[in-house]
């Protein structure tokens, strides 16, 4: 047990943090795309699209992220597809969170009042125009708070990628734990770093939410 000041540990940990941020950013990008596609698929009028979206969402929500990661990393090579750890990590993080995000997108679209759809029909908008110009712009703001939670889960799941040897924050912490035996200091710093990123993410998302809802009343009826 040692209580030496942990400043010397910061540089390597910050390098790991950089990797963690890359993983998170890549995962979020993929997550948003998949959430949008699958969420729209779930409310689509075309049955095969709906089935496809449902199968994707159920599979990735029904199994754990770590199992998915192992499957992508250890099983895919059997099929001749070897992914670099970093790529496998981003793929799994995005696919896993995208399934949760799809539910957020679906919920937000369905939460837009029915009257909006009727007004659009009465004005002659096509179903596609109604979705993209009337429903989605209103749904986006109500998507942000639950999406923020999905992103934070993604950030937390990114730690799992260390077990397939991506040199992220968790991986670096494990290495230095074994080297320096300053376990308490290392894991405390790591916890604080993850927490800081999570707080940053959630603050950023609420800022975005405030910006987007400025001047507009998206609740429907004015109080």
């Amino acid at each position, binding site marked *: 047990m040692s209580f030496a000041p942990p400043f010397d540990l910061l540089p390597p940990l910050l390098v790991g943090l950089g990797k963690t941020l890359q993983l998170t950013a890549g995962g979020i990008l993929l997550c948003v795309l998949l959430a949008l596609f699958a969420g729209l698929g779930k409310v689509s009028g075309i049955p095969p699209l709906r089935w496809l979206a449902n199968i994707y969402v159920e*599979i990735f929500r029904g*199994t754990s992220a770590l199992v998915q990661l192992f499957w992508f990393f250890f099983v895919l090579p*059997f*099929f*001749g597809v070897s992914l670099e750890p970093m790529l496998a990590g981003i793929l799994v993080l995005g696919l896993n969170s995208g399934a949760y995000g799809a539910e957020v997108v679906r919920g937000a679209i369905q939460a837009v009042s029915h009257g909006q759809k009727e007004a659009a029909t009465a004005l002659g908008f096509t179903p596609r125009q109604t979705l993209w110009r009337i429903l989605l712009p209103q749904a986006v703001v109500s998507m942000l708070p639950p999406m923020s939670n999905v992103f934070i889960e993604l950030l937390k799941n990114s*730690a799992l990628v260390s*077990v397939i040897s991506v040199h992220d924050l*968790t991986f670096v912490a494990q290495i230095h734990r074994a080297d320096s035996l300053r376990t308490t200091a290392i*894991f405390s710093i790591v*916890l604080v770093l993850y927490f800081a990123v999570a707080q940053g993410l959630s603050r950023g998302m609420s800022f975005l939410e405030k910006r987007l809802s400025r001047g507009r009343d998206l609740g429907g009826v004015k109080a």
Partner: protein
Amino acid sequence: MNLSLATGAQWDWAFAWEILPQLLSAMRVTVTATLLGMSLAVFGGLLLVMMRRSHIKTLSRSGYWTIEFIRGTPLLIQLYFFYYVLPEYGLQQSAMVTGVLALGLHYSSYMAEVYRAGIDAVPKGQWEAATALNFPPKRTFFTLILPQAIPPIVPASGNYLVAMFKDSVLLSTITVTEVLYTARDDIGSDRFRYLEPLTLVGVLFLIVSLISVAGIRRLERHLEKKR
């Protein structure tokens, strides 16, 4: 990315049948860890939410930050923290106990939010009515508010039970021989075949999740109708 299309993977049914009993038996460890972890979380969450609702500012504020901190950091790191740090202070337990503690702590923060949402959903008029009837605050909370808060709490807890079940595979990283450890470290690296064990684990989880989620949805509808 390495694309080598040489190996033609073949699903081996005989192998799959051979390892299934071993996986199912390891699933018992997974289920045990989940149930124990959830029992901890049910109480831990209640403790945290009572801290948060406390009239003592420092207590409610530390409750808030505890919840935020536990929810804002990875379960894996919390697991490592318990596994590697606690023994340094003389708190040595088995990997299984460490795992259950970490699961319980992590999900306490989620359960606290579940309780909070349930309590907030009880109409304000109920508190006011209790005050008008001169109920002491503690009595009000335990005999009037909590029973009304439970219907929405039950299905939400169910969802977190399923989530914890899926997260319990993280215990494999600290050598608990639950189902994923068995699939990857016992079977996979021994036999050099990951396809069947890992796919079977995925399928087992999928089956349990789908059934549980369908059950929770039915329960939810049942509770809604009773209102």
